[in-house]
């Protein structure tokens, strides 16, 4: 199968002001991700994993270098263009789920589709399909506070996948889950990656996650230490 580049990171650096000093979180990073990859960025805390994921997700901009996501230059995107890129093409899965507490499972998953102005019928079909992928159709009417950690993360996956994005960015998705739930979640994501061809990009230091990844990028002190291809 021909490789189709979907994310290109070219000499990206990112610095933050911390206590009056500039902290360099990423140093001259070069990376290329192709469509359908199931890759992970691993490394200790403070290595720059989440920063890189945020730049790819257009939530942040590089200080230096260029980041192209779906041929869009993240550095030059306006707030509105970045919002549109996230809304239609990027799904997020967070460590602490970030479900909207006053909405039901159905409404949480439906949210992204509401922003896309889809019809009620289209939304319902898509939400139920996404809930079926994660095995939560019976929980559609429940509020997040009635769900277990594993169930909450599955709702987050459904929310990320409901709009069938080209890229899913998962930031420590298993950090708050027990081993059994973590494996369930990872199996679900792997299945969706295979079936829908969605590119999954993880930020993790969880050994369990690494076992499922096809590619592992080791990051240390903002630099790529190793870029290894597995399971191929």
């Amino acid at each position, binding site marked *: 199968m021909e490789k189709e580049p979907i994310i290109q990171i070219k000499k990206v650096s990112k610095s933050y002001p911390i206590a009056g000093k500039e902290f360099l979180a990423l140093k001259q990073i070069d990376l290329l991700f192709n469509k359908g990859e199931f890759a992970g960025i691993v490394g200790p805390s403070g290595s720059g994993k989440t920063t890189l994921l*945020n730049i790819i*997700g257009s*939530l*942040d901009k590089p200080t230096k270098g260029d980041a192209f996501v779906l041929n869009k230059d993240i550095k030059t995107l306006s*707030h*509105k263009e970045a*919002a*549109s890129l*996230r*809304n*239609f093409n990027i799904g*997020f899965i*967070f460590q*602490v789920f*970030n479900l*909207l*507490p*006053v*909405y039901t499972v159905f*409404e949480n998953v439906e*949210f*992204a589709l*509401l*922003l*896309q102005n889809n019809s009620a019928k289209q939304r319902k079909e898509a939400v139920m399909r996404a809930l079926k992928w994660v095995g939560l159709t019976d929980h559609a009417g429940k509020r997040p506070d009635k769900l277990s950690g594993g169930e909450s993360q599955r709702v987050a996956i459904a*929310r990320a996948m409901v709009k069938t994005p080209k890229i899913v960015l998962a930031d420590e998705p298993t950090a708050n889950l027990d081993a059994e739930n973590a494996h369930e979640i990872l199996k679900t994501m792997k299945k969706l990656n295979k079936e829908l061809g969605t590119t999954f990009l993880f930020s993790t230091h969880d050994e369990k996650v690494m076992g499922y990844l096809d590619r592992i990028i080791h990051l240390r002190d903002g630099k790529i230490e190793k870029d290894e291809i597995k399971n191929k």
Partner: protein
Amino acid sequence: MKLELKLAFKNLFGARLRTLLNVLVLSFSFVIIIFLNSIMDGWDQQAQKDSIEWEFGNGHLINEKFDPLDPYTILDGHGKIPEGTNGIIPILERQASIYPQGRMISVILKGISSEQTILKLPTKILKESKEEFPVIIGKRLAESTKLNKGDKVQIRWRDSNGTYDANILSIVDVFDCNVPNIDNGKIWIDINKLWEMTNLKHKASYFIVDNKFKDPELSSWNFKSQLTLLKSLKDLINQKKTSQSVVYGLLLAIALLAIFDTQILSIFRRQKEIGTYIALGMTRLRVVRLFTIEGSVYSILALILGSTYGVPFFIYMSEVGFPIPPADQKMGIALADVIYPVYGVKLVLMTILTVIISATIVSYLPARKIAKLNPVLALKGKKQ
């Protein structure tokens, strides 16, 4: 906008107690502001109606030497009734003293045609009475002098030559009227009798005019229209309204402060939620709009809640009225025992608009901060 409105309702209903408290405070402001304004409008309407019916008629034609507010002008402030003028009722004012239970009380004797129908004064009884000096007085004077219907009281007055004369008046009726000007210290007598008593035949201090009156150029007489006469009353009520607006302002400020406080807290406490909205593809502008609409929705919910208890309360008050303490009725302005509130469409709409617009503004001010939030930090729930 439709989506933001839908989400705002969902967020507020989800917040339960926080929403209930804000909505309760705001709805209370709604009801109180409408009620207090309706009382003022009710007073305004009642005072104008009573003043026209009991005192002003369609206007006054006043002798140039007579000033109703200056008692020193009573003695010489009168003139001969102009001939051929239709639709006018002459009133002659003279100073006198009465002696109820031996006390001397200064009064104004007011002569009026017993056949007049312009004013609501029960003057017909003056004509029907068989007494030599029949008079009518208002309930305020009756109370202060302890005189009742059927009582007799000695009176002393001066005729046109300044000679003192005295006689016994018979109180043939005590009328109940809300206009103090025609009641406090006023004794109403048939003008023919007063002309006879004072030797001022066909003289009048002023005239009450009816709607047939055409305003001819009458020398020595100044015409004051109904509108001019009502002006001082309207000015007084407007002044009262202005001072009451301080109360509305305070009430509204308390309610708006609650919303402002909630908005500030929301933006601090809901950082993760704001970050999630942005990550899911909502523009910052839409998130600002969502939070602003949430504030506006408080006022809409307050309107609904306020209606549930406010409307029955308004209906009840419009039936039983708002009682005015007797002390307030002696202020010298037309004030009934009970004021019936008047709920005008303008009043209700203006109140609704004021509350909704103010709530929107106080919601928008803190919500602007969202546009400057760093979504990465917001997602982590870090205070910014």
